[in-house]
Structures are given as C-alpha cells and as structure tokens.
C-alpha cells in the first residue's frame, strides 16, 4: 500500500462525486431524445444543485436536528459507498474497510436516514414516502444481497475489488447464473433509484411519488445535498453493475496508461448504461405502488434463481 494507491482512491471518489450529476444529465438527455423532446443540457443537474446552494434554507418549525443532519449523513454514506466500489481501479486501500455486504449495509443506512428525516416534520406526504421507500427497500435489499451472494460464490470472496479483478480475468462467456442475477440487479437498480416503472423521477403528482415525497420539506442546501446524493446513488449502482457484470478493462495495476484506459472505458460503459436506462424508462409504464412489490419480488426470485443455477452447475 503506497501513496499512489491513495491518490488513485481519492481520484476515484472525486470522479464519482463530480461525474454523478453528469450521468443523471445524460440519462435525462437520452430520455428526452427518445421521447422526441428537445433535450436539456447535460449539465442541467449541476446548475440545479448550484442554484439550490445559493438559496436560503427554509425549515419547518417543528423540524428536529435529525432533519438538518440527515442530508449530510446521506451524502456522506453515498460518498463512502463510492470509495468502496472499484470503478476505475481494483487496488484501492479503502475497500479493505468494507466488502460488498457492508456496501449493502451502507446503502441501507442512507435509506433509513432518508426515511427518518421524511417522517420528522410529520406531514402526510413525508410519512407516506417513508413508508413506501422502506417497502421498496426491504425487498430490494435482500435481492441485492443475493446478487452479491451469487457473485461471491463465483469468485470465492465478498471483497468487491477482487470480484472485479477475478471476473475481468475471465474470458467473456455467457454465464447463466450471472445472466439471471444481471436481470435481478437491473430491476433492483430501477427500484432503488426511483426510476420508472417503480417511481417516476420527473413526477410531482403527489400520490404516486416515492422519492420526491421524501424530499418535499427540504429546500436549498439540504435539498442540493439530497439531490447530489441521489445522483451519486445512481452512479454507484451503475458502477456496481459495471464492476460485477462488465468489468473488462478495469485497471488492476496503477500504470498511468492502464488507468487512463480504465477511466475512458468506464465513461463509455456508463454512457451505454445510461442510454439503456433511458430506453427502459421510455419503454415501460409506471406501475401502481402496490404492483411495485411484485416487481421486486420478481427481482428477488431472479436472484435466487441465479443462486440455484450457480449451485446446480457448480464452477
């Protein structure tokens, strides 16, 4: 472990924090194109965040300290999650501190704080959003864990960098268990990031929304942090997917050339992932809230199926 490892680690975090809003902007742009609308600038999420930071924060009279602390905690956990995920390189010193299971725990921490903060002011929408968010979460979390289980069994470790390294060393073959889990993972990604068909990121129709309902009482810098954290969450999920299902090209040493290639490849992969996400969102209709558990139960079953296939077929 040397200084260079740490520099790469910090570079990865900085990249995630900086690029996350761009990814959201890219998805929005693709979606607009697909829906025959004129697309907003890819930097629009940035401008939104900047605008929010400059505004005065308005907080409800009966908000507690928890309400003001939560945006920072949610943002902090998402940045920490970005530090754990091997996005550009696999030799990252901090990833020792948390493996894939701890990463799931980290995402759960963010969710719990988000939901608690939404309940803090005591509005109807806030509690409704918290309830729905936790409902999505308790189904998505085990599905994600089973996905990680399958990959861990394949790679004989739960450390994410090792998983990425070992999977990238394999030649490209269609692995049936990974195919099932990839479907499950995509479904979890859609649900966890408040995407159609589970939630609509563009909605402000109160009765159907989940993620937006949680943030209704937030304004200014708190809202900016929450939005940024949401963008980071999407970025993190995309990077988990990349690291597990299409890891080829990730830098396993810190040769500058390899790193540059790795960053470029990550960019390309995320461009495709974002476009794919926009395509899924355009092609599907939003589910009623009570159909969402069925959607996630399907994801869970797909993941379990992947696990069974993995155990049946062996190595």
């Amino acid at each position: 472990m040397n200084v260079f490892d740490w520099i790469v680690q910090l570079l990865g975090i900085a990249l995630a924090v900086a690029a996350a809003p761009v990814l959201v902007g890219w998805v929005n742009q693709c979606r607009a194109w697909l829906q025959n609308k004129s697309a907003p600038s890819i930097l629009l999420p940035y401008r939104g965040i900047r605008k929010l930071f400059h505004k005065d924060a308005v907080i409800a009279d009966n908000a507690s300290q928890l309400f003001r602390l939560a945006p920072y905690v949610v943002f902090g956990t998402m940045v920490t999650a970005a530090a754990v995920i091997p996005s550009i390189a696999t030799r990252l010193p901090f990833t020792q501190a948390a493996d894939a299971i701890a990463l799931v725990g980290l995402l759960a921490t963010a969710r719990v704080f988000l939901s608690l903060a939404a309940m803090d002011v005591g509005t109807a929408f806030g509690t409704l959003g918290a309830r729905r968010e936790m409902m999505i979460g308790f189904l998505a979390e085990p599905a994600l864990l089973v996905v990680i289980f399958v990959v861990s069994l394949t790679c004989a470790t739960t450390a994410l960098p090792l998983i990425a390294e070992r999977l990238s060393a394999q030649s490209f073959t269609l692995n049936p268990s990974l195919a099932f889990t990839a479907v499950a993972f995509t479904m979890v990604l859609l649900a966890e990031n408040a995407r159609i068909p589970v939630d609509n990121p563009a909605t402000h129709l109160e009765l159907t929304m989940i993620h937006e309902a949680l943030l209704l009482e937030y304004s200014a810098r708190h809202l900016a942090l929450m939005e940024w954290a949401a963008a980071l969450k999407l970025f993190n999920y995309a990077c988990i997917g990349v690291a597990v299902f299409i890891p080829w090209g990730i830098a396993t040493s810190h040769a500058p050339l390899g790193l540059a290639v790795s960053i470029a490849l990550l960019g390309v992969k995320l461009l495709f992932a974002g476009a794919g996400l926009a395509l899924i969102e355009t092609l599907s209709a939003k589910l009623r809230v009570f159909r969402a558990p069925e959607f996630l139960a399907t994801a869970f079953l797909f993941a379990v199926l992947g696990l069974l296939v993995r155990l049946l077929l062996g190595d």
Partner: protein
Amino acid sequence: MSHGLNSTLTLSLLLLTAWGMVALTGLVRPASIAFVGRTLFPLGALFGIVLAIVAAVSLDRPAERLVLPIGLPDLPVHLRLDGLSSVFLILLGAASAGVSIFAAGYFRKGEGTAPGLLCLQYHLFLASMGFVLLADDAYAFMVAWETMALSSYFLVTTQHRIPEIRRAGFLYLLIAHLGAIAILLSFGILQGGSWHFTFDAMRSAHLDSHWATVAFCLALIGFGAKAGLVPLHVWLPEAHPAAPSPVSALMSGVMLKTALYGMIRVSFDLLGQPVWWWGLVPLSLGLFSALYGVVFAAAQTDMKRLLAYSSIENIGILFTGLGLAIVFAGVGMRAAAALTLIAVIYHAMNHAFMKSLLFLGTGAVLHATGERNLGHLGGLIHRMPWVAWLTLIGVLAIAGLPPLNGFVSEWLLLQSFLFAYKVPHPFINMLLPLGAALLALAAALAGYVMVKFFGVIFLGQPRERALRHAHDAGLVERVGLAWLALGCILLGFLPTHVISLLSVVTRELNLGGLPASDAPWWLLVPIPERQSSYAPLVFFAVIAIVVALAIVSVRFFYHQRIRKGPAWDCGFGGLTSRMQDTAEGFGQPIRHLFQPFFAIVRELPSPFDSKPKYRLEIGDRIWRVLYLPLGTLVRQVADRVAWLQQGRIATYLLYSFVTLVVLLALML
C-alpha cells in the same frame, strides 16, 4: 483447581450471593423508594459490572470446578466456570448493569408490587440466571432454571391488579413449565443409564443415536419455549408488554439468551459430536421465527409488543445460526462451525445490549407520557432529546446498519452461510444458501420495523395534546441508557477483540478458533482465504470526515442562512397531526404483502353510517390453529376426568386405598 479469591469461580459465586443479599436487603425497608432505588439497584449494577470483569478474566484460564455440599443429602451442587459460561456471564453482568442503573431511577411509588419486593424478585432473577450459567449438574440447573422462571413470573405480574397482566403471566408460567419438563426429560435421557446427573457424567455417557436425537429434540422444545421460538412464542408478546420496562429489558435481553446458552451447552458439550441433520430443525424453525417475528412486529401498534416480536425475530436469527453451526460441526467442517457459532454468540451479545436499550427507551416514554400505544405518541424527540438520540443508536444497531454492532454479527452470519454450499449432502447444500436469502429478507424487514418504531414515537408531530408536557428521562436513567448505547457502539467498533474473546468458546468446544491472520487490530478478516474484510472504525471515520467536510465546505463556500416557517406540505395549509401515518398505516404494506401470516378481522363502515366505525384486529394464526384447539382438547379431557372429583372424603379415601393396593400388587 485454585481456591480463595484467586479463583474466578469463587468470585463469581460470591458476586451472585451478593446479588442474593441485595435481594434480601430490599425487604428491610420495602416501601422506601429512596433506599431501594438509590442504594440497592446501583449496588446491583456495580456487582454486575464486577461480575462481567471477573468472567472476562476467567476466559483466559482453564475451566474451574467447585462442589458445594448444600441442598439434599448426597446431592451436592456442582458448579463449573468454563469459557461458554464466562461469555454468557459477561453478557449477564454487563447488560444487566445498564438495566439496573436505569431501574434505579425508574421504579416509582404506587405501581403494584412494593419497591422492596420488586428489588427482591429482580435481584433473585439476576442471581438465578447466573446460577443457570454456572450449574454443572442437572439438579442445580433445574433449581436455578425454575427460580429464574418463578422470579420473572412475579416480575411480569408486578401490576397484578390488571386482569390482562395476570393472564399474560399465567400463559408465561404455563409455557415456561412445559419447557422445563422437556428440559428435565432431556437431562433424564442424557445421563444415559448411569443415573448420575452431573454434566460430567452426561459428557462421558454414550447414547445410541436414537436416544441422542430424542434428547436433542426435547432440549430444543424446552429451550425453544424459553427463547420464544415459533410455535412456542405465544407467551412472549403477552409477557413482555405486561412487565415493567426494566424487567422486559432483562427478559428479552438476557433471559432469552440463557435458553441459547442451554441449547449450545446441550448440543455441543453434553451430546459431544452433534449429528448434522439435527441442525436442520433449529435452522428451519429459526428462519421461520425470524420472518414471522419481524412481519408481526411491523403490524404492531403497541410499542412494547413490537419490540417483543422483534425479539422473536432475533431469536430466530440466533437459532438459524445455531442450526447452521450444528450442520457444519456434524459434517466435520470445524472452521465453518466455529465461525458460525462465534457469529451466533456475538449476535446474542449484541441483542442483549440493543434490545435492552430499546425496551428501556420505551420505559422512559411510558413514564413520560403514560402511553404505550404508538397511535398516541409522536414528536417526542423535541421533548425527550436524550432518550430519543440514545434510542436512535439502538434502532440503527438493531436494524443491522454499519458501523454499529448489529451489522457485525449479521455480516459474520452471512459470511458463514457462504460456506454452506460445501456441505457434502446433495440438495441440502443447495437449500442452505437460500437460508441466507431469507435471513437477508428478515434483516431488511427489521429496518422497516425500526423506522416505524422510531419514526412514529419520536418524529413527526405529537398525536396527542398531552404529549406537549412530556419530560425527558432523569439523570440516572440517562446513565443506564448511555451505558447500553456505549455497549452497542463498542461491540460494533471492536469486532476483532470481541471475536478473539469468543473464540475461547469454540476452541473449548473442539471446533478450533478462527484461523490466524496478520491483519491489524482494527481490521476484521475472519476468513483469510476469502480476503473479505471489514473495518468499522475506518468506515465510521470516513463517513464522519465526509460529513464534516460537507458541513464545513457548505458553510465556507455558501452561506448558512436559515429561515423557520410552517411546514410546506405542498402548499396545503391545514396540516394537523392526524394527517401523519398512524402505526397501522405504516404497517399496512406489510399486512398487505404477508397476508397469509395474519388472521385479520376487519369491520368497515358502510357509506351510510352516521357514526362510522373502523375496526381492525390482527391475530396470530398459530394461536388459532394450534393453541385454541389444544386448549379446548385439554378442557374436554378435564371435563371427562372431572367425575372422579365427587367432593366426598370417603370416595377420595377409596381412591387412595385402590391406588395402594394396585401399587402393592405391582411391587410384589
């Protein structure tokens, strides 16, 4: 064998006796809150801390034995302090210390039983739990076990003037005794024809495999009844809410763990080498309990019942792990068995701290508001910040969130499930990993339940006007809560230290410790070849640094202007506290999704009702399917037998005469 004050066993015995003395001293001035509360309970807490320290010291030493010539003639009491006992004694001492400190400020006048009598029952309860852990023969074990059951029964029925509480107490006593009978029968088999009831005799007895299986099953029934394993759980959600909060904390946090201790003692120590398929029974019952408990917890409206169901969930997790450890040990995967057993005992420790903390938190809320129903609470974080923030630590811990303690043990358990595919039995090795999926589901649902618990009690707007006068817990109570919260934090932050303590137990049970790794003290690497690691301190430090950096940079680059105003609520002006989710509302998705679990009775008003009434009753299906028919059956049999009871003394004398004649005929 060492004697005198150098012997940790003698010291532990002295400390348990000291608890007994504290218990008796309570009778000196039974009505004095000042004496009992301010003097005796803190003294009990002090003895608890010393007991934990003594037990921790004894972990490094070989097992000690002691034979006390008390009790019946020719039946001396055998005591033994080994690693397994020590670990559970640490749990008992450290967790009960927090509860006792809290109790010092908690008990008030005019709550049923007089404080002195409470002190007697409470400390007798503590001492008997200690004796259960030290006992080394079946007699001593059963005496201590029954003392524990009886003293806790009296503690549960503290407010014995309320009929529901008497009923809950009776149910508890009934199931406790059914369990005790099963344990007694199990010991009867374990002695294996030698008719010596010391645990040593049982260790050396050779049982054939059928009898060993029967003994294991009886032990599972007996200890499962005490632990609240489904379907023997029905007493738990009745008794826990009925008891005063410190007692619920002790019962849930510590007493349930004595059942786990007994199960580990019987299956790994007394039975020697367990048969692998035994493990499948506690494993499947445990998984079912975990899901059942957490699903019911989500549907509760009474905060203490919610926690009681959450205890069933955690007991389920413990028994799942225990079953897995038995499977591993049975097929000779000793390293995996050691890891699993460590995870189980770790989780027992964690649960002792976090569940006690939460129960005490509900106690503080109950005292401040007089309300146990979640539908009448809300917004208490403003009135009771100490209780709220300390409870939040317990909530995050029990929801299994890193870097607190609940996560570590669940992480270890999931890691050990990753070994399950290596079990050399087809089918089983494929089904076992699915257990991990169910465990993950239960753990995620626990997060749901805890958000409901904390959110409805402490966040939002107060649902009743009276809550505006709620007061925070007193200083002494806060110290008790802080002690337990500190336990949650330390158990979460120092996993390598805890695990090195716990591996004494697995080495003693011939499973070997965890493989040595050259990782630094802050980095947990339980399975070196898997290279999975976890470092809670670093983890927490990074989150804290990012949060601090975010706060500082937002202040530096922008401004910190803040305005207060009424809640926005999408511009809707007439927001009232009635518009928040109720506890029922918050649990609604779970009721909807897990409908087959519940027996739901719903009465909806018709559109023309002038006084609409809405009633929803959520029942336990197992109660209706299993217990009610059983109760009816018992009553019918009793009715049939009742004709024997003629009420005339001559008839009864005739019965005695006939019995004697029959016995004589048999003997001769």
